[in-house]
């Protein structure tokens, strides 16, 4: 049943797979692979911030007018990848990701009993990163071949209304598994399959409220074809 579903998915990508060849992890140097898919990008806290006033005291502690707690919500993610094999196991990979997380700021403890609400806005998040993937042949499990990945990237976040762009950068480490569904040595599209990725991103800058580095997790699945 699993195999039938995977074949169906491959057909959706306009790939004709007459047979599913035996899985192989060997890749010719210079071969290009293109992948597209989607997943989830985790949210996370952005911290607390008080609207404070200067207190009327000789040793003043700030007077809090109200307090805010901000966070990014977990959001769906779409992504595309291009990789080039530089050896049997090592590939250089570029990735483009897009997501639209909601920035949520919860407001509470108003000094004048103002309503407690969560104010929101939608962020358009673009990520372009580059890195390497290293195939872990020794750890293959059946037809699933694991790999490790790491790299750096550029973060571009557009606030609602497209009136403000904030930029940052990212580092990521992670890995995943690949399963090749077909191989055609004599066609333009020489192979195809699916892959699953889990990555930990360390983001700094962008729409974050501070200069700290924030860890986020991206989980995604993709279809890939090799040329």
């Amino acid at each position, binding site marked *: 049943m699993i195999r039938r579903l995977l074949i169906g998915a491959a057909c959706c990508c306009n790939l004709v797979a007459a047979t599913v060849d035996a899985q192989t992890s060997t890749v010719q140097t210079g071969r290009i692979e293109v992948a597209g898919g989607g997943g989830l990008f985790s949210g996370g806290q952005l911290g607390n911030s008080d609207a404070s006033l200067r207190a009327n005291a000789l040793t003043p502690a700030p007077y809090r007018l109200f307090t805010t707690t901000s966070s990014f919500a977990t959001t769906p993610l779409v992504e595309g990848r291009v990789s080039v094999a530089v050896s049997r196991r090592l590939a250089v990979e570029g990735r483009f990701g897009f997501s639209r997380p909601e920035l949520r700021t919860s407001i509470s403890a108003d000094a004048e009993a103002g309503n407690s609400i969560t104010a929101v806005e939608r962020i358009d998040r673009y990520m372009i990163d580059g890195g390497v993937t290293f195939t872990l042949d020794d750890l293959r499990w059946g037809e699933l071949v694991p790999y490790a990945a790491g790299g750096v990237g550029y973060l571009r976040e557009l606030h*609602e209304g497209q009136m403000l762009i904030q930029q940052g950068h990212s580092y990521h480490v992670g890995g995943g598994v690949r399963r090749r569904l077909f191989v055609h040595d004599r066609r333009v599209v020489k192979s195809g399959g699916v892959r699953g990725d889990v990555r930990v991103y360390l983001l700094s800058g962008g729409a974050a409220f501070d200069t700290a580095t924030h860890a986020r997790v991206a989980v995604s699945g993709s279809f890939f074809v090799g040329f």
Partner: protein
Amino acid sequence: MTAAQRRVTLVCLIALLMLASRPAAAYLNLSEDVRGQVVRLKWNTTPRWFASNRSIPRVSASDFQAAVARAFATWQAVPTASLSLQFVGFTSAAPFEDDGISVLGFESRPELERVLGATDFVIDTVTGEIVESDIFFNSAFEWSVAPGGTSAAFDLQSVATHEIGHFLGLGHSALGETETNPEGGRRVLASGAVMFPIAFGRGNTADRELQPDDIAGISDLYPASAFRARTGVLRGRVRRNGQPVFGAHVIAFNPATGESIGGFALGADGDFQIAGLTPGPHVVRVEPLDDADVESFFDRGVDTNFAVTFYERLFVAPAGGVGEHIDVGVRPK
């Protein structure tokens, strides 16, 4: 004084403890109705000021001049404002005289038992330009110019910083909190602007330093070249049941910087505008000036029949220009 000039008196700073006031928000530009147009009062030439040669106990004329000069320098040092100020010298002239020169000095006004200082103006009623401004400091109170303040006296530099804000064309900010005294009246708990109308207590020197609301206000009035390009403007309106709310106080709070800057809904349609916002998301809070000393801000009544309300979206201030217009609906109390 010519026929086109008019003296406008603004009593600005009121001593602690007794004034009825409520917290609110925002810098406010002084303005005048000039031939049917509301014109912001400001200097179009370099203000030249004189220091009175009157001394009082513990404050010599030179001490006075030095403290006031530091206060002027505080405003002049705002990087996003373009201000040029010039000290001319000492004078035997008193503040509030129609003498064509701007004089700052002490005056004994014991009958003004809540007034630490006041600023008045001569304006050109054709252009709205300030052509003269005087400040008096009430020597009926104890004053200090000590670097760290003196517990029994009001800090001259702090009060001068407030009054010079008026001298330059700023009105009062309502960004502050007060409480009722058991014996009557109110005292200020905290403020978010040097331009808050109620002074801190004796010995407190905190208002020697400007706050973001003051900086936005002076920069909006005398913008340096980069100010408009690097900061954003919030425009919107406050309405209750579809009707404009006049005089509502609006605070824009930036969670990333902790800055609060405000404005008032003064337009016919409940419109407001707040300039000088650091680019990024802002929480917008609207509150009534319900039991405030409204006369410290406006010469007409304001609508206070609504509850404190937060706007349900985050407002994003752009880096230069005006962000998306917002409509804040408030509920009746």
